[in-house]
Every structure is written in structure tokens, then in C-alpha cells.
């Protein structure tokens, strides 16, 4: 078993873990964490493609590596946008959940501050 196969399995496992958490959790911030786990798992699988593409003087193929770097930065930008949206959502509604059942029940502290 070479190191890249282990890293590939780690990537697959991370995607699985992240997917489970994404489905099970109703809290948006936890969904975001799960989403980032999936993302890094995908990057890792792509990373082993870079490792396997070693040709000539390089121990790696630089093209997928460069794409993973831009991917990490874009994932951060998407996370920041998601955080801004969920904070605003929580501010508007006074609640932090995406569970549809919660919204059909009456609010515990009565929605007097709704504008």
C-alpha cells in the first residue's frame, strides 16, 4: 500500500463523514462544517491524482495542485458568504436551525420583536 492510496481512502472517508453530518444536522453552521469536510475530502482525492501524475523532474503534477490551492481559497470565500447569510437569517428570525419542523411550531419566546 503506497502513501497515496492511504490518502485516497482518507479522502473517500472524509466525503462519507461529511455527507452524513450534512444530512443529519439541522444547524446551519454544522452543515457548513460538514460541507467543508466533504470539500477537503474531494481535494485530497484530487491531490492523489496530482501525486500519481509524477513525470520527469517532478514528484507531482503541478496542475491539479494549483487547482486545489484555488479550490481551498474559493471554499473559504463560499464559507464566508454562507456565514454571512446564516447570521443574517438568525438575526431576522431569532432561530438557528434549518429543520422545517421547528418552523411550524410556535416560537418559545413569542415573536414580539418581528418587524
Amino acid at each position: 500500500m503506497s502513501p497515496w492510496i492511504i490518502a485516497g481512502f482518507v479522502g473517500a472517508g472524509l466525503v462519507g463523514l461529511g455527507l452524513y453530518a450534512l444530512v443529519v444536522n439541522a444547524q446551519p453552521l454544522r452543515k457548513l462544517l460538514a460541507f467543508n469536510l466533504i470539500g477537503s475530502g474531494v481535494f485530497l482525492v484530487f491531490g492523489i491524482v496530482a501525486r500519481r501524475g509524477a513525470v520527469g523532474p517532478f514528484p507531482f503534477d503541478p496542475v491539479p495542485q494549483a487547482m486545489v490551492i484555488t479550490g481551498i481559497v474559493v471554499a473559504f470565500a463560499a464559507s464566508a458568504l454562507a456565514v454571512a447569510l446564516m447570521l443574517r437569517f438568525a438575526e431576522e428570525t431569532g432561530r438557528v436551525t434549518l429543520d422545517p419542523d421547528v418552523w411550524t411550531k410556535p416560537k418559545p419566546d413569542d415573536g414580539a420583536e418581528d418587524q
Partner: protein
Amino acid sequence: MILFDLGLAVLVLGVAAWTIAAREMFSAVVGYVAYGLLLAIVWVRLYAPDVALTEAAIGSGVTGVLLVVASKRLSLLPQADAPPGRGLKRAAAALSVLVAGVLAAAVLTLPDPAPSLAPEADRELAATGLGNAVTAVLIAYRSFDTMLEKVVLVLAVVGVWSVAPDRFWGGRPAPLGPPRPDAALVFLARVLAPIGIVIGVQMFWVGADEPGGAFQGGAILAAMAMIVMMARLTEPPRIDSGRLRLALIAGPAVFLVVGLAGPLMAGSFFAYPAGFAKPLILFIEGFMVLSIAVTLPLLVAGPPSRKGEE
């Protein structure tokens, strides 16, 4: 070494699982930061030091700050989560195992010999005079992608700002730190910021030939800006500041202008004139570092939430 890799794999997956299972949101976020750092070691093992630096600085560090700030703000609200039902849990577990299994099978059946763009990138490397192949791919071989990615960052900032209520438009984002920060934090910010700025600039500069580059260096500069804001030595800037907006778009704008000048100077879009490529690349990267160092703290600070006295 195989033992090290296996141990690392177990550790990464274990910390990831713990992050998901942690009851407190804050613990989950701290777990995620540790997870990011461990993942950086995996990247080093894959001969990807540039990716490892980016993962540690942005994937773990800056994202960690973003999530800590968000969990702090969200924790003030009542938690209304109903625990997920057993059926949902089982279905989700089955789906996850299926997807992970398919991915693992795909990993095992990757084509042999592996396809590679390394020879093409190597040719480009010789033309640019750079020593770091990944930087050459980012700025020369796939420069159009990198330019568009910078535009995505600007769009993300616009998206975050547009979430603000109308009455705060043009104001300042909420402060990153408590009203009276710990003296130790203030001390750290005072001592670390100058050192960090030197390291960030150095990381960008050596990125031409060694692991490092505009993203990694910019992320360290951004971290220094954030620690200074957390210690309340300075406040997040007003978002209607002209200088701020100029710094925000400087990277993609300079990149685009040089790219558009390509047909005149070198015969095609986003091409560099022979013999002049390296200084031009460093020129573009300099502005990119500035834009990244400004963009990341703005994304963490969030939309303007107060009018902000002039």
C-alpha cells in the same frame, strides 16, 4: 513510513469524526482547526508543500477564525434543534457508506499510467524563469483560471456586504474582538504583527522558486490584520472607503490588464513577452498579495453592522 501514514490517516479521520460528534459547536470548530493542520501534514506526504501551506493558513487558520466568530455570534440565540430521527440517521449512514465506498473503489481503479500535464507545465516553467512549478501553473499556464478566481473573491465580498441591512450600508463591520481584550492578546498582536508581515512578504517572494506564493503570503498578512483587529488596536474599515475598494480589486484588475495587453506584447491573451515574464509575474503577484490580504479579513469581519463615525 507506512506506519506513520496509517497513523496519520486514522488521526485525520478520527478528528473529523470527533468534529461531527462534538456536542458543543465551539468544540467542533476547535476540532476542525486541528483537523486542518493534520490534513496539511497529509499534503506534505503527497509532495504538495504549496497546498499544505494553503490548507494550514486558509483552510484551517482563516476558516477557523471565521467559524469561531460565527459560533460565538450564533451561540447567543436559543438552540431549537430537534435531534434527527433514527430512520434519517440510518438512511444518511447508508448513503454516506455508499458514496465513500464508490470513491474508494474509484481511487483503486485510477487509470495506469496516470494522465499528467506535468510535461506541459514544465515547458511553461522554462519559459517563465520561475523555479516553483505550482506558481508557474497558477500565474502562467492556467493564469486565466487564477484571474477568475480572484474575481470570485471580490464577488464573495460583494455578496457578504449585500447581506447588510440598508441602514448600515457604507458603515463598519462588527468588531472582531471583545470590548476590552486581554492584555496578553494585545501584547501578542503588537509583537507578532511586524514579524508576521515580514514572513508573509517573504513567503510571497520566495514563492517564485520555492514553496509559497501569493495565496500563502497573502493569507499570513490577512491573519496579522485579523489579530490586530481582535486586539482592538484597529477596527474593521468602513466599507465605503475608496482606498479599501481599490486594494480589493487591485489584484484581479492588474492581472486582467496585463492579460489583455498580452496580444500586443506576446501575441495572445494572458501570454507574457519572452524574457520579461518573471518580473511581470512578480508585479501581478504583488497586487494579488495586497488584494488577498485585504479580502480575507473583510470576509471574516462580515457585513457592515454599524454606521461607524467618520
